[in-house]
């Protein structure tokens, strides 16, 4: 589902098609739309038919019923949502002030920041997780009573593996950076910040009353991408031995073919629903003002 998300993104908030375009453009647009729809919808429909087509009863929604009763469903879903929320908050708290500071007072560091934030795209997750697990396994005995060791243990708590949040933050950096950079570029940050400072606003006030309200759509798309990424993240979670939703799907689907497809469709719909909620939350303010 992570692979699908980018194609969902650009549609959000796209302006309504102006009327009176040349005929040929409209025809082409229609063709592209139909091709894309066929490409996406046919596999979806086929999967759906497969899940509801019972050889004995004909039509049955049993496969979907089974999802909810399957062992570990609620737990892993909640874990994924919790990880997503924690990742979104962490990555925004880290990047937004940093990006503002670079834009306002050290524009020359911008390329450095850009490269740093894009780096995770270049490192394959498998390399990344190999590094993480090596570090986590490293723990000489003489350190066993130190806070460092305890931290290592604490971040791997299976109920809420903080280490996954850390990994997801790194993986989300490139997307968050792009989204926020576009948002900041669209507003005249320097002038707005200076105008607010001139009115006596402290830095936190500038942040919460001026920057964030005017960066709604950038923040929404950043959260949006992070959410999709965390819900779909498999490699790191699997190799570190945790069981968020994506890992659970794979585990559960081995046994029952209909169930596994039903779970995929369900997770797709769930992700779309969450993205829809996020994107409307981000854009409503705009049209309202």
């Amino acid at each position, binding site marked *: 589902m992570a692979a699908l998300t980018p194609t969902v993104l650009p549609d959000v908030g796209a302006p309504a098609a102006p009327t009176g375009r040349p005929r040929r453009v409209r025809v082409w647009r229609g063709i592209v739309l139909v091709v894309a729809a066929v490409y996406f919808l046919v596999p979806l429909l086929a999967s759906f038919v497969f899940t509801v087509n019972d050889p004995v009863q004909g039509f049955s929604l049993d496969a979907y019923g089974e999802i909810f009763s399957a062992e570990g469903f609620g737990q892993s879903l909640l874990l994924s949502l919790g990880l997503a929320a924690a990742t979104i908050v962490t990555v925004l708290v880290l990047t937004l002030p940093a990006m503002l500071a670079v834009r306002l007072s050290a524009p020359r560091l911008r390329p450095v920041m850009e490269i740093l934030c894009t780096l995770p795209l270049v490192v394959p997750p498998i390399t990344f997780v190999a590094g993480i697990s090596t570090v986590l396994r490293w723990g000489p005995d003489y350190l066993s009573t130190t806070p460092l060791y305890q931290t290592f243990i604490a971040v791997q708590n299976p109920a809420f593996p903080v280490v996954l949040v850390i990994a997801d933050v790194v993986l989300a950096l490139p997307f968050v950076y792009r989204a926020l950079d576009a948002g900041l570029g669209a*507003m*005249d940050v320097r*002038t*707005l910040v*200076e*105008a*607010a*400072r*001139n*009115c*006596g*606003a*402290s830095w936190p*006030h500038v942040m919460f*009353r*001026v920057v964030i*309200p*005017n960066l709604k759509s950038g923040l929404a798309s950043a959260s949006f991408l992070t959410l999709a990424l965390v819900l779909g993240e498999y490699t790191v979670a699997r190799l570190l031995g945790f069981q968020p939703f994506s890992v659970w799907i794979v585990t559960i689907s081995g046994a029952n073919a209909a169930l596994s497809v039903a779970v995929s469709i369900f997770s797709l719909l769930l992700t779309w629903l969450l993205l829809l909620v996020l994107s409307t939350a981000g854009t409503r*303010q705009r049209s309202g*003002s």
Partner: protein
Amino acid sequence: MNGARVEFRGLRRTFGTTVALDGLDLTVEPGELIALLGPSGCGKTTALRCVAGFESPDAGAVLVDGKDITRVPANRRDAGMVFQSYSLFPNLNARDNVTFGLRVRKVPTAKRHARAAELLELVGLPSQGERYPHQLSGGQQQRVALARALALEPQVLLLDEPLSALDAKVRVTLREEIRRLQLSLGITTIFVTHDQEEALSIADHVAVLKDGRLEQSGPPAEIYDRPATPFVAEFVGTMNHLPGRVTGDEVEVAGQRLPVHGQRPDSPDVDVLVRPETVLVTPDPEGEAVVVTSSFRGASVRLRLRLAGGTEILADLPGHDAARLAPGEHARVRLVERPVLVAPRTAAVADAVPAAG
């Protein structure tokens, strides 16, 4: 609201190798409107930002009422600023924009709304409080920005080319309104502009900057009539450059001897700087000057004449006097008897400078 005295003391600010301010010294008296005038890149905005606290000088100090505020953070300074670009908060309507600063200070809502109504009335937008910035015209946005800058009753008002994005007509009305407001509030105002007409028409004092340094400061009439340096003369208004020859305290130019004002260069061959309105032209078929072009500018006419030696000179005269001076006509040219500025001879330009005027 009463104005404060603002002093720039040896202000210096460099960006890499660019020297934006190079020891700027300037004092603005309480309640005065001073115009910072100068060519693009001479450091006007930088000087203003040092007062607002957005720029910290490498050396020197900014004093307000004798207190050194150079290290005070921007949000604790008592100066309202209107920016060159549109700076209203897009997420707030005009009323909330105006009262942003009051909200920061936790003034109760009812009081804020009353104050917003008062300020919007003051800037001539009494019924636009509910509008958002994108629903306001450029001129209206700058009025709201002005109201916002005045909301906290600052001691100093800083205006960074607030009118440069507006069309000519709005610019003239708005600058007069700014002046009217400034006079009635008695607030010390620093007005940055590169439009010399704007500076001359509304300021009590004009400070001309060049390369980060003060070139001359004085009342508009003095700047215009007695520019201290050729740079100021050139920048403010239009100037003729006529070849002349210095002898003693006088200079010989166009067949006349005029007293020299200000510095004189080492070489006796100089350019004499003469304003077009101090050139007297009388129609005379025997005259040695020939009218080359004549451009009508409403109240006056600007003539370009060729003198006997081939030098061209610009002359301004009242519209009705110019009827008999069509291109090709002969005329006599005299300069008003008054001290003139001289500058080292610029080799190529023996011609009048068609600068903005």
